[in-house]
């Protein structure tokens, strides 16, 4: 035994290995299976033990997990894309073309785009599963709500990213989408009630000052909108989503783990 496994034992007994992994081989005993989860900051998202019913793929569909995985993929590919992309109207489109034509193994943009579409679908399916198993019921009401915000953030991430290639598809989809904001009651310049907001004869809400203007930084989808969407897409929304995911995962455990019949 000692001879056969010697090369492996040589590694796992070395000072380097032991400085990283403070537990023995989790393949061998229960104690180590617990320690591996407890001593690793990432695995530590999980409890040491969980209900058998909740671990089944047929119960969770692993959809929340897949969504999280896709979020990580998007973060990674997104960072790689940021090396090449400049959010300036003059450069943006050409940078995207260059990504396709000059960057070796240039499928980062593909992975990022299809990953984003997939993430929207998996979030929906995750929510669908949580609904169908009644897992939003007490004590998980709050975590369902954290989820709803995550759903919104996922859609907004996708929406803000849609503009960045700065092609016809991009600006017109965002134009159509953001046109809706014009009609916000009271706060959009074509919304019901907006005309009521005035000081004397001065209109407070007009095309140059309403929610759409605030979103786009202008009356049209133009360079300022590109910069705003870029910052929202690469910094603000991912940060908010990451924080909320931490809350989401923490609450799963605080609320008693994956739901199951009482």
């Amino acid at each position, binding site marked *: 035994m000692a001879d056969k496994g010697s090369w492996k034992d040589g590694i796992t007994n070395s000072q380097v290995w032991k400085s990283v992994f403070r537990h023995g081989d989790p393949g061998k005993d229960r104690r180590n299976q*617990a320690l591996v989860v407890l001593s690793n900051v990432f695995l530590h998202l999980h409890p*040491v033990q969980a209900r058998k019913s909740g671990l089944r793929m047929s119960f969770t569909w*692993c959809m929340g997990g897949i969504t999280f995985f896709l979020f990580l993929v998007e973060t990674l590919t997104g960072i790689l894309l940021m090396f090449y992309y400049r959010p300036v109207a003059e450069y943006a489109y050409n940078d995207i073309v260059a990504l396709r034509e000059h960057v070796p193994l240039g499928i980062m943009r593909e992975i990022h785009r299809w990953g984003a579409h997939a993430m929207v679908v998996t979030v929906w399916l995750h929510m669908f599963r949580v609904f169908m198993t009644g897992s939003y*019921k007490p004590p998980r009401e709050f975590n369902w709500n954290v989820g709803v915000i995550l759903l919104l953030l996922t859609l907004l991430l996708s929406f803000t990213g849609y503009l960045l290639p700065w092609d*016809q598809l991009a600006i017109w989809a965002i134009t159509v*989408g953001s046109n809706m904001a014009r*009609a916000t009651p009271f706060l959009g310049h074509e919304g019901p009630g907006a005309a009521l907001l005035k000081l004397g004869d001065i209109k407070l809400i007009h095309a140059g000052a309403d929610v759409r203007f605030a979103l786009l930084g202008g009356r049209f989808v133009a360079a300022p909108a590109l910069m705003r969407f870029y910052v929202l897409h690469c910094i603000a929304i991912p940060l908010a989503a990451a924080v909320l995911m931490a809350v989401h995962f923490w609450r799963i455990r605080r609320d008693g783990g994956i739901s199951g*019949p009482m």
Partner: protein
Amino acid sequence: MQQLKDLINGFSSPQLIITGASIFFFLYLYFRKFLTEPSVSLFFLTLLVGFFAFSMTDANFREIVLKPDNVPIVAMIYLIAFFTWFSLRRAVENDEAITKGGSTFEGKESDQKLYTWPNLIYQEFICSILVGVVLLIWSILLKAPLEEPADPSISPNPSKAPWYFLGLQEMLVYFDPWLAGVVFPTLILFGLMAIPYIDKNPKGNGYFTFVERRFAITLFLYGWLIMWVLLIIMGTFLRGPNWNFFGPYEKWSVHKVVPLVNVNLSEFVYVKWLNTGLPKHWFLREIFGIVATVLYFAVTPFILAKTVLKRMYIQLGIFRYAILMILLLPMIGLLLKMLLRWSFNLKYIIAIPEYFLNV
């Protein structure tokens, strides 16, 4: 072949598709025991795949479906169909077990505890690898779209929002942007967040079931599958230039002319029935629409509370019931407006363009 395509094109219209899907939806839930059986489901799957395979032989269909951004939506249709089937099947099985006095699929295992290493962590690892591989293959095979550089002076026809918002864009056919683009999305979000607080039913927590949560599941599924997913599918594949409706095998022609014959409620009343012509002041002109709308929102809740929803009203209490109504009435209102449009070409119930207030 061509006749079949013409037939399908001929039957493609928003009213037939939405009505047909709604009828199928309720039949499916009612006869779920039979319709979710594996053999029957295999039949549905064959039908769906068959329809798709047949349609792919058509150049017009192919052109729309193979647009890079539309490919994921095709995958989504199959995934959603599969998971809807799966969850209802599991619900049917659990419901049967419950009536027999046994325990549910989840219940049998819920007091056993397993170590998450390796049971969960391996599962997550394998899922990640599979999803990663699928994503990689997909990315190698399908190029991300890139059109002409942005040009604010040339607007493409049709101009579409990103696909996940096309349900809302489809609602624009029936409502002005302030409703379809602002109020409805707000209500959807608010409604989702309210679900755990309005649904007081303690049963069905942590396992698949249908019988124990009939109302909640029916409402949620209808909202999700018909009023969100189906509208997205229609908005993506069947709405062409000028947002006109096209059959799946029809060429998207910019020149398709659809007569605009929609009429406001005020015109129905004053011009068609009373024959007096429209009053000058907007309030007098719109009084009938305003009264109808106010009645709808103010009186229906009381009628429902005394009749069909009596038990629910007592169970929920006035506050929760009121919130439920705030969510339910607009949802039904959207369906009613669709029906009125399809049957009477009704444009606006209330039309006060003076204040951008059209309903």
